[in-house]
């Protein structure tokens, strides 16, 4: 850990746009329906449309595939099997060396001989239209040899359970054990050792825009161009090049507008890789857009955890120890290239994060199963570790008789104790748990709310209040993936260029999926250079035209991409001032750039406009002093180096009412106070928080991928898979504490996942607060459906 001292020059710039709710430059275009999503891109009549034949079985060997009838169907261009596609690509294995011992089997774009989940694409049909491709896909006849499906993680490792990949020996993907301090001694010292089991259902992202890819291979120049709604264009470029044996500069990935991603669109999906292969094979553009049914069985799922958690606490409220034993089933393969071990790893790493305690023991077991693959989805692992931690903290409050807020106050890390390390040894640079909780309690008027709840209880109205403190990983360094061998960029770059009319082009490796990246980039760029945002043109999502970068994941875009823009902007300003100085025969140090005009730094008096500088530098460089060459392009890159992540923190609260007759839960209020360091755009941050909260609420109350014992997903449509809709949600109050990271000049940390992290825990605690006086055992099995509530109340 290092004591860092940041230079906050960017916060002190005149006419700063940092901290202002400026509107998003790309919003009007989207609101008029003039966006460019992948399915909106047309490459003409030679485009083939792909439909996949998907396995109806969770686990089955392909004895043979008869494609003859499909090939003869109207409009069909080709029918391609796994073996045919395997001739032009190499399989991948989703492991990382820093998750020691994690194993997985080689995965092909289409499997060679065995389908390992219901919904896995096993053959492709390309036709003149998607409808014709679907018609023909129904004519592909597969002779299946059905094998026993491994569906329950609890029995996946039993000796008589079928092994999904014989080459791996068993169904264990990974196990991690961690042990810090002396948990047994803590248990002996504690007045209460409380154990609960928490269950988190499988759910999925349900981006309104499904996954989509349009691949166009030009054999004459061996050039593959793909339009793809990915969060990470450079990562996909690398993957397509590597696995189709192309040079990386022969692959161009373009990600224009993306209709929501939340981690769903950050992975290597076999059907998308297959689509690129179909274009290579057929030497023509091929488009694949997942329909909703196939999205449910092929977009990654997440969570699916069963966690036995233990807390040891003294009567004075001091938390002495946490312990967890976590079990998760990740589907038949570990996802490439991020792996499916990260969610479990995060839980082990982050349990108990807000609190001071010395003793910790954890085991996480990750097994293969014949269900759709699981991987990183918004707030990876966080909703789980937060709900287990906060559920146990509330159990401790009940056991000690302390108020839940008071118990937290006594155990939360002190705001003046940084830098310091967590019980697991992770470094915290600068957090604000105590202040965040205090602000939260004030915002909700905690004491008055408790009085209201108690008064209503007397009248038979059952309301509950739930609190949750949390930490969150943002701004990941190369310690997150790169160190384990993944070719995923932790650094990001920005290139800025002054044009001849004095406007500025900004190309960034960060990407936009709706979170407001373009606004954040424009605010930072405008401030760093000294121009109004209207003079900027932002370019994102094109591997041919943006600096190499990681894209958007793990709440990194503003903190890392934004910092690169800040540095590039400052460099461009200095270069512009050197050019101005040459023109004005002045010292550059005496000049500044403000509002798009070069001014005298001391007096603010106008000296020369940017348009004039552009004109002279580009059209009349002959008038510049001998030997002076103006450079009006600057590129800078940035990656955090001192800390592996910039942790953020916050606290949430939920207030809800339970109808004890129907089991229905009505959300009345929700609060979040959150500390993401420098707030670049308050409006965007709050809407990230709100959207994130609602995603967390979905997981807590509604969303579940329901599977039967044979591995069939039973609710793979939007009528049966419930997502949060407007009517069932409360208004949400957001507040902020700002503890900037000193690792960057901007000081921004991520804000995209905090809402999702804390909401399920807050709702769970509120629900159990409402149910406790009725004698119900705590409900810890998400989603909390009316049926589960009634069962907890003993009514059914």
């Amino acid at each position, binding site marked *: 850990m290092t004591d860092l001292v940041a230079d906050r020059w960017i916060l002190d710039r005149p006419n700063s746009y940092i901290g202002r709710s400026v509107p998003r430059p*790309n919003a009007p275009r989207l*609101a008029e329906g003039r966006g460019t999503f992948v399915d909106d891109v047309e490459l003409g009549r030679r485009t083939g449309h792909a439909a996949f034949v998907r396995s109806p079985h969770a686990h089955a060997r392909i004895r043979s595939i008869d494609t003859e009838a499909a090939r003869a169907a109207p409009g069909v261009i080709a029918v391609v099997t796994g073996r045919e596609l395997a001739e032009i690509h190499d399989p991948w294995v989703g492991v990382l060396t820093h998750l020691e011992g994690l194993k997985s089997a080689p995965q092909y774009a289409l499997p060679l001989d065995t389908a390992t989940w219901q919904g896995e694409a096993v053959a492709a049909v390309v036709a003149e239209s998607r409808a014709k491709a679907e018609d023909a896909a129904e004519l592909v006849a597969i002779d299946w040899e059905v094998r026993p499906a491994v569906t329950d993680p609890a029995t996946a490792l039993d000796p008589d359970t079928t092994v999904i990949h014989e080459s791996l020996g068993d169904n264990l993907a990974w196990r991690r054990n961690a042990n810090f301090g002396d948990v047994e001694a803590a248990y002996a010292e504690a007045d209460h050792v409380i154990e609960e089991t928490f269950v988190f259902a499988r759910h999925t992202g349900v981006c*309104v825009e499904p996954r989509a890819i349009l691949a166009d291979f030009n054999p004459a120049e061996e050039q593959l161009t793909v339009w793809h709604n990915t969060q990470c264009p450079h990562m996909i470029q690398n993957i397509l090049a590597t696995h189709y044996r192309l040079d990386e500069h022969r692959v161009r990935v373009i990600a224009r507008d993306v209709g929501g991603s939340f981690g769903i669109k950050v992975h290597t999906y076999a059907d998308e890789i297959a689509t690129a292969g179909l274009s290579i094979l057929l030497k023509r553009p091929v488009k694949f857009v997942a329909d909703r049914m196939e999205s449910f069985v092929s977009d990654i799922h997440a969570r699916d955890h069963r966690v036995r958690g233990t807390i040891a606490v003294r009567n004075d409220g001091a938390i002495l120890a946490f312990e967890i034993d976590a079990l998760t089933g990740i589907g038949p393969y570990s996802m490439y290239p991020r792996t499916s071990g990260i969610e479990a790893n995060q839980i082990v790493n982050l349990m108990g994060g807000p609190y001071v305690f010395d003793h910790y023991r954890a085991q996480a077991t990750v097994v293969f199963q014949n269900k759709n693959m699981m991987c990183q989805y918004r707030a990876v692992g966080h909703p789980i570790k937060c709900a287990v931690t906060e559920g146990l903290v509330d159990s401790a409050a009940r056991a000690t008789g302390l108020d839940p807020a008071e118990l937290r106050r006594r155990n939360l890390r002190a705001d003046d104790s940084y830098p310091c390390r967590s019980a697991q040894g992770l470094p915290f640079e600068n957090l604000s748990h105590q202040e965040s909780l205090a602000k939260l309690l004030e915002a909700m008027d905690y004491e008055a709310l408790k009085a209201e709840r108690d008064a209503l209880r007397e009248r038979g109205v059952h309301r509950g209040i739930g609190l949750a403190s949390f930490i969150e990983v943002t701004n990941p360094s190369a310690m997150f993936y790169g160190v384990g061998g993944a070719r995923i960029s932790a650094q990001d770059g920005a290139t800025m260029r002054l044009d001849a009319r004095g406007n500025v082009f900004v190309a960034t490796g960060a990407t936009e999926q*709706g*979170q407001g990246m373009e606004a954040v980039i424009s605010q930072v760029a405008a401030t760093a250079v000294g121009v109004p945002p209207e003079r900027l043109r932002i370019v994102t999502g094109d591997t041919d035209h943006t600096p190499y970068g990681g894209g958007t994941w793990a709440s990194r875009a503003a903190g890392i991409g934004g910092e690169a823009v800040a540095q590039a902007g400052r460099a461009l300003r200095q270069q512009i001032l050197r050019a101005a100085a040459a023109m004005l025969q002045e010292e550059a140090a005496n000049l500044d750039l403000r509002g798009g005009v070069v001014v005298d730094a001391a007096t603010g008096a106008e000296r020369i406009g940017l348009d004039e500088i552009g004109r002279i530098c580009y059209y009349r460089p002959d008038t510049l002093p001998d030997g002076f060459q103006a450079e009006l392009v600057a590129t800078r890159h940035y990656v955090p180096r001192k800390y592996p992540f910039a942790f953020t923190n916050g606290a949430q609260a939920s207030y809800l009412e339970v109808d004890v007759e129907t089991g229905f839960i009505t959300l009345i209020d929700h609060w979040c106070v959150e500390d993401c360091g420098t707030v670049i755009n308050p409006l965007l941050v709050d*809407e990230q928080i709100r959207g994130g909260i609602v995603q967390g609420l979905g997981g807590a109350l509604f969303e579940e991928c329901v599977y039967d014992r044979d591995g069939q997903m039973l609710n793979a*449509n939007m009528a049966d898979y419930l997502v949060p809709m407007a009517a069932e*949600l409360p208004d949400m109050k957001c507040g902020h504490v700002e503890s900037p990271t000193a690792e960057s000049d901007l000081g921004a940390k991520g804000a995209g996942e905090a809402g999702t992290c804390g909401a399920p825990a807050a709702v769970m605690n509120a629900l159990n607060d409402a149910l406790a006086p009725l004698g119900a055992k705590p409900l810890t099995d998400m989603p909390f459906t009316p049926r589960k509530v009634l069962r907890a109340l003993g009514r059914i």
Partner: protein
Amino acid sequence: MQTNVDITLRVNGAAVSRRVEARMNLVDFLREELGLTGSHVGCEHGVCGACTVRVDGRIARGCLMVAAQADGAEVWTIEGLSDTGELRALKDAFVERNALQCGYCTPGMLLTAAELLERRPDAGRAEIRRFLSGNYCRCTGYEAIVDAVEMARGR
């Protein structure tokens, strides 16, 4: 079985005639035949509302109608209603309030909101939420959308 149908309709104020497959739904027709890609496809089974368009003065789900049913109809999409300026107050409020993030649900949301403001100009927040409950948005958590509808009403 008749597989193709000739249809004539007005789309965004202009007359359109096409021969379409009988099974082609309205939103695919608008997107693929007319290039009106502002109407989106999110589920194709009538739940998400991303495909919402206006047919004969009322909002309709473009994935639940076949194009042939729109023969003789007056269809308006986000593109047309943006050009006429009818949605301007709503659009400006959505942008100002950041009531859209990825924007994929937004065209459908705006058309639904416009109908709400026309039919229930005095709707309170709960009623706005109920009216918008057929339009799924994964990004915003809806609060900003409700705010934006209230803002637009005042303009």
